[in-house]
């Protein structure tokens, strides 16, 4: 019963995703382009940003530690 509700919820989420990105409205060749080009491109951008931001925060944190380390 709980599994059924979970499956329904997941299907609902997937349907929302399809609606929001207008995937239902696309002709097959557009869907092909969307799922092979745009979505991986977007995922790569998100991953890069994630790595970049954490690296910068890490560097900034170490910098401030160095600065306050001298004073303290």
């Amino acid at each position, binding site marked *: 019963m709980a599994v059924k509700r979970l499956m329904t919820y997941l299907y*609902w989420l997937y*349907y*929302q995703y*399809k*609606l*929001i*990105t*207008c*995937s*239902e*409205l*696309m*002709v097959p060749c*557009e869907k092909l*382009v*969307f799922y092979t080009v*745009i979505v991986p491109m977007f995922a790569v951008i998100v991953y890069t940003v994630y790595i970049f931001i954490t690296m910068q925060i890490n560097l900034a944190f170490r910098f401030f530690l160095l600065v306050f380390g001298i004073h303290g």
Partner: protein
Amino acid sequence: VMYFQREERGRPGSAHLCTEGGSSPSGLKGGHTASLHKNGISNGGLYKRPFNEHFEQAPMYVAVLTYLGFGVGTIFGYLRDFMRACGLESCNLAAEREEQKDFVPLYQDFENFYTRNLYMRIRDNWNRPICSVPGPQFDLMERVTDDFNWTFRFTGRTIKDVINMGSYNYLGFAETDANALKTLADVLQNYGTGVCSTRQEMGNLDKHIELENLVARFLDVEAAMVFGMGFATNSMNIPSLVGKGCLILSDELNHTSLVLGARLSGATIRIFKHNNMQSLEKLLRDAIAYGQPRSRRAWKKILILVEGIYSMEGSIVRLPEIVALKKRYKAYLYLDEAHSIGAVGPTGRGVVEYFGMDPEDVDVLMGTFTKSFGAAGGYIAGKKELVDFLRTHSHSAIYATSMCPPVAEQIIRSMKCVMGLDGTTQGLQRVRQLGENTRYFRRRLHEMGFIVYGNDDSPVVPLLLYMPGKIGAFARRMLDKNIGVVVVGFPATPIAESRARFCVSAAHTREMLDTVRTADVLVKLTSDARGAGRSYKSVTLNLNNSFCFCFS
């Protein structure tokens, strides 16, 4: 605004209402209700009954996702245009012949961008052919498309008994009951269908005189005049009432017929925010203080154009405040009751009766017979001098063919039914049923948590969908469940506020309304069901708050 508040000092409730009311639905300021029960004053003030309007704003993520959807659509639009230009894809659009390619182009490519790339994908939800009377249920012809909505073909089957939530059939007079249409059959036998002349030549029938007297009696005014077409009533009569040197103050969301009439007249047009009395008052004060733009002379006439119920928003005009303003600043009022005549008011006499006001306060009462009376045509009513003037000076009277007799008889019989002159209480029952259906449907939708715009008493119920992907999906899924709805998107509405517009009818039974309401497609599609709405008095977010929330 200060002067207005001081004037109404004797009635503190109205002053408070004037400052509280009137928020623009598409503006960034949070929409809020202007309900009297907040002040605790119910019998004083301009409003004799609570005036509850809702224009809730959706949360930030909804706007972001909407623009994301449009962004994806635009990117793919450019991609498809590129493929069409390259020749990778066949072009189904209109194009010039090869020999004409060097001439001045006939077709502007970019202007149709939206039509080509976004509208075409969901085009199957509009222009659906109906093959029965548009009563509470109707039959549709089934049509399919083989090439993604560029062309359609009919399979030959009909989809039977689709619940009709889109027709303007407020009192349910779109019917085929032979008993009800008996007088029509007689008139058809006697007069035929064609009039073949204009009103001023040989097209003035005794049916028209009878109808005009009845309309004047219905609205409790001195005289009325009827025209064959509702759109033409507005667009052809406003030019005869105002001209150069006059000022028209028109609501932001007025219908195209009013806008066209105003533009054709040649008068100066100024727009005030939707249902916003402060904006209107500011314009009136500026007009009277500064006069015409260069010569600084006084305006010959100031005409305020408003509608009774706005069909895209479902909001009702703030008539008591407008009449108070008009009396103070000596302007004229033109009220277009296309959707409200027959649909609001205790006995169906429109917004004037709904607010308990005197019809003499409104200078020009205009309405149409298309919505509540199941016929076609429009009327203008008011003082006898006004109507006599229009009989001689209106373009529609001079050049347009007059109303055909069976249609006039349909209006006569439905109006007599509403007034109770046919000896039954059926008319009053219909008006009451419509009010009950409206309130029930709206209340239930609110309880389910949807964002529904408009006044609690208006039978036009716009349910906000926001995202472009949902427009097509909603209409298609509802049709699969045998419910026919009208969905509207850009450019009829603001780009981020597409909606599904339900028109409640007196002929709907409670079972039909429940079927529509519980169609699980509603819950499936609108994710805002639990998020945005939440409760009757919903939380509204300002843009500033939302940004802080996103980045904190």
